[in-house]
């Protein structure tokens, strides 16, 4: 067993080193691109070490306080809140990890290893996860602090509690990974899950903030203190009971009980934690067994309706450019990440609209306060443009092998880039226009001139960012999987950052024009005229930038062609 676990540890370590050593870069720019890609994980690792040291010191101090009889030490309370997030992170975290970061069970099945050992090896990979690494200094150094304070027996029990809590976290992570694998091996089910997570998590996570913002603002308007929200008694009681058996709480309460000589309470909590650990690992083994029983991908073949429109040529484009544009649109329509780009701004808009309609007025979004339909429309339609970032700043590599087909085709660079530019516009504009129309329908107030300015501002923004996005896509291509929801579907980090800056600068220029007309000249009627002029200038700028993008693309064409073979 130990020999096999050691082999798996070596395997993970070797894979990590190989990923850092063998860059396979073809030129200086690609070396830079790869270095930037790896900077994130390296920086995270660099920051993690001092963080872990700091956490160890805090845990030691918290343990020492507990040992000296301070049951409600502020430091231990801080650790308690931190630990609250660990079980959740261990369940949700595997969803956002690239599949390659986990050991492939199909490959494992070929090895002459018993199933239990395979499960142990699979579960042990969770030891490298951030949420597990955070538990380690707490589990080790709270007992250390207790021992320093002279409570040796408590230290031993709390150390055991920490080990059991760690086992629960690892078990949850392994179980979540296996369940995810079981769901995602049916490709259609996996894509649906990905789409749900992309759409629902952001929407749900925004609701409390939005509602709270309105709630606080309402309270402020009335000049009263923040009102308390009362839950029904049975809900509060059930929540309290559930919270008492939450793994991190069991660990915390057992750790508090021991120094206070409440041995029975500590033992009960620890026993419950152990039962949870056993149950989680039993469930994990069961699900892992199901994967090993039939490890292959399943799922029926998907058919799509043949639409005549797909065979048509977009007016104003050559047939080749039109084909590229329609292929780009279909990519967005048929991948979870692409669909999320099309749908998530609309979901966000719906959430905002519900909040606004319920509370009649504007809403707060962090430091930004949006009031009235124009602000709402400008914000949501701009979000629709920004949401396309993962595809727009990686517009060539998202096609994967399809990119090779395009590069082998008798398309001039201009046709290919134009097709991509139009295709990206087809992805970005429909949701933006739907947002705009919905905003007009909801609010029906404000100057028509200012309403007309919103689509003009969108056009000017898109014209200004399309060529830089093509440049970034050619310079920093990244092979991505638009079927996944994690990092593996994001564009290159630097392309994403620079792309976002380009969006902000391009969008900001419109804002300056609107401010100039409304605040300084005090003539709102001028806004659409000025923006129309700005669109013309933006078009001219975009053509100049497009020529540069074409040159950059020509010089990086070979690099793009080799991206798949990774020569």
């Amino acid at each position: 067993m130990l020999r096999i676990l050691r082999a798996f540890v070596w395997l993970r370590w070797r894979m990590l080193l190989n990923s850092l050593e063998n860059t396979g870069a073809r030129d200086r720019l690609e070396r830079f691109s790869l270095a930037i890609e790896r900077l994130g994980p390296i920086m995270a690792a660099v920051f993690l070490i001092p963080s872990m040291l700091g956490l160890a010191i805090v845990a030691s101090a918290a343990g020492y306080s507990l040992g000296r009889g301070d049951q409600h030490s502020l430091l231990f309370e801080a650790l308690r809140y931190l630990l609250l997030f660990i079980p959740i992170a261990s369940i949700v975290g595997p969803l956002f990890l690239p599949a390659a970061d986990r050991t492939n069970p199909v490959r494992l099945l070929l090895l002459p290893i018993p199933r239990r050992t395979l499960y142990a090896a699979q579960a042990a990979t969770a030891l490298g996860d951030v949420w597990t690494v955070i538990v380690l200094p707490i589990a080790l150094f709270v007992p250390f602090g207790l021992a320093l304070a002279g409570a040796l027996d408590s230290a031993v029990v709390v150390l055991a509690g920490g080990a059991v809590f760690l086992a629960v976290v690892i078990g949850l992570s392994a179980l979540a990974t296996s369940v995810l694998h079981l769901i995602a091996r049916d490709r259609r089910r996996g894509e649906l899950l990905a789409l749900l997570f992309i759409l629902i998590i952001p929407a749900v996570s925004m609701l409390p903030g939005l509602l709270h913002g309105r709630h606080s603002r309402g309270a402020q308007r009335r000049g009263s203190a923040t009102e308390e929200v009362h839950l029904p008694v049975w809900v509060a009681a059930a929540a309290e009971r559930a919270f008492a058996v939450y793994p991190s709480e069991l660990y915390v309460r057992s750790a508090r009980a021991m120094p206070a000589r409440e041995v029975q309470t500590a033992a009960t909590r620890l026993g419950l934690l152990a039962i949870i650990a056993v149950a989680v690992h039993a469930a994990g083994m069961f699900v892992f067994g199901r994967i090993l029983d039939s490890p292959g991908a399943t799922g029926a073949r998907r058919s799509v309706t043949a639409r005549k429109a797909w065979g048509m040529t977009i007016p104003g484009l050559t047939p080749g450019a039109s084909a590229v544009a329609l292929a780009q649109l279909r990519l967005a329509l048929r991948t979870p990440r692409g669909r999320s780009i099309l749908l998530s701004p609309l979901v966000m808009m719906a959430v905002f609209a519900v909040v606004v309609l319920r509370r009649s007025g504007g809403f707060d979004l962090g430091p930004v306060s949006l009031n009235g339909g124009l602000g709402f429309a400008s914000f949501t339609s701009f979000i629709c443009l920004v949401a396309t970032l993962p595809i727009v700043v990686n517009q060539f590599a998202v096609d994967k092998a399809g990119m090779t087909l395009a590069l082998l085709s008798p398309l001039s660079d201009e046709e290919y880039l134009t097709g991509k530019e139009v295709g990206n516009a087809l992805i970005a504009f429909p949701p933006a226009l739907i947002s705009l129309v919905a905003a007009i329908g909801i609010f029906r107030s404000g100057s028509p001139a200012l309403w007309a300015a919103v689509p003009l501002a969108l056009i000017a923004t898109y014209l200004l960012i399309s060529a830089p996005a093509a440049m970034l896509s050619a310079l920093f291509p990244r092979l991505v999987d638009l079927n996944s929801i994690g990092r593996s579907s994001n564009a290159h980090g630097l392309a994403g950052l620079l792309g976002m800056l380009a969006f902000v600068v391009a969008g900001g220029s419109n804002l300056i024009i609107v401010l100039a007309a409304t605040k300084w000249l005090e003539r709102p009627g001028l806004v659409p005229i000025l923006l129309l002029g700005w669109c013309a200038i933006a078009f001219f700028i975009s053509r100049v930038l497009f020529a540069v993008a074409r040159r950059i693309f020509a010089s990086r064409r070979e690099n793009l062609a080799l991206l798949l073979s990774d020569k």
Partner: protein
Amino acid sequence: MHLELAVQTTGLTRDFGSFRAVDGIDLVVPAGSLYGFLGPNGAGKSTTIKCLTGLLRPTAGSMMILGTNPIADPVSVKRRIGVVPEDLALFDRLTAQETLTFVAQVHGIDRATAQHRASDLLNLMELKSAGTTLVTDFSHGMRKKLSLAAALLPAPKLLFLDEPFEGIDAVASRQIKDLLLSFVSHGGTIFLTSHILEIVERLSTHIGVIAGGRMVAQGPIADLRAGAGSGKSLEELFIGLVGGDARTPAALDWI
């Protein structure tokens, strides 16, 4: 007698940093021939095809494809060639029908002709029932057949096929072989790489052998076999040319 050439290279070289993948090869592929381009793994076959099809620029040397310099006029050359590359070059999220529509559009083929040809090809490749299925759900063999259909749709004069028989079943392999012979009999030229020497031996009129990035032999298959001595199979000829020996596992006495 002047021999019309579909592909001609002189000193074709391609470096990847300090590594020379293709080292000054002179290819001579007569028009109307089925040219088998052979070599051991890592010999430089795929890199050569990538240079010839315009995916890579040669580090040195010159090329003429169907009488045109592909570096000076790549679009004109691409209009007249079809390629099945090693990654098969297919959009995952298009259907078979849409893939062929895409190819027809980028080649500027009118819709009626495109539909007619697509229908013929999907029938021939037995992909008709999968016409509306996304490529991502295709098996490897289906992808290979679709890639070949996409290469054939514009009715090219020259086909570049990188390992067309790898990973496909016997029935599909037979269909593809018949299709390729028919293509050549109609005046087309095929430049193919394959590790399956029996197939190359049966189909090819000419072969070229590359090893370590260098051409070690080239010419009509009959001439090469005659030069090597009577009764030699292509496998024996190939092993002799690339410097391999018939190593027996005698040293592995622990097996």
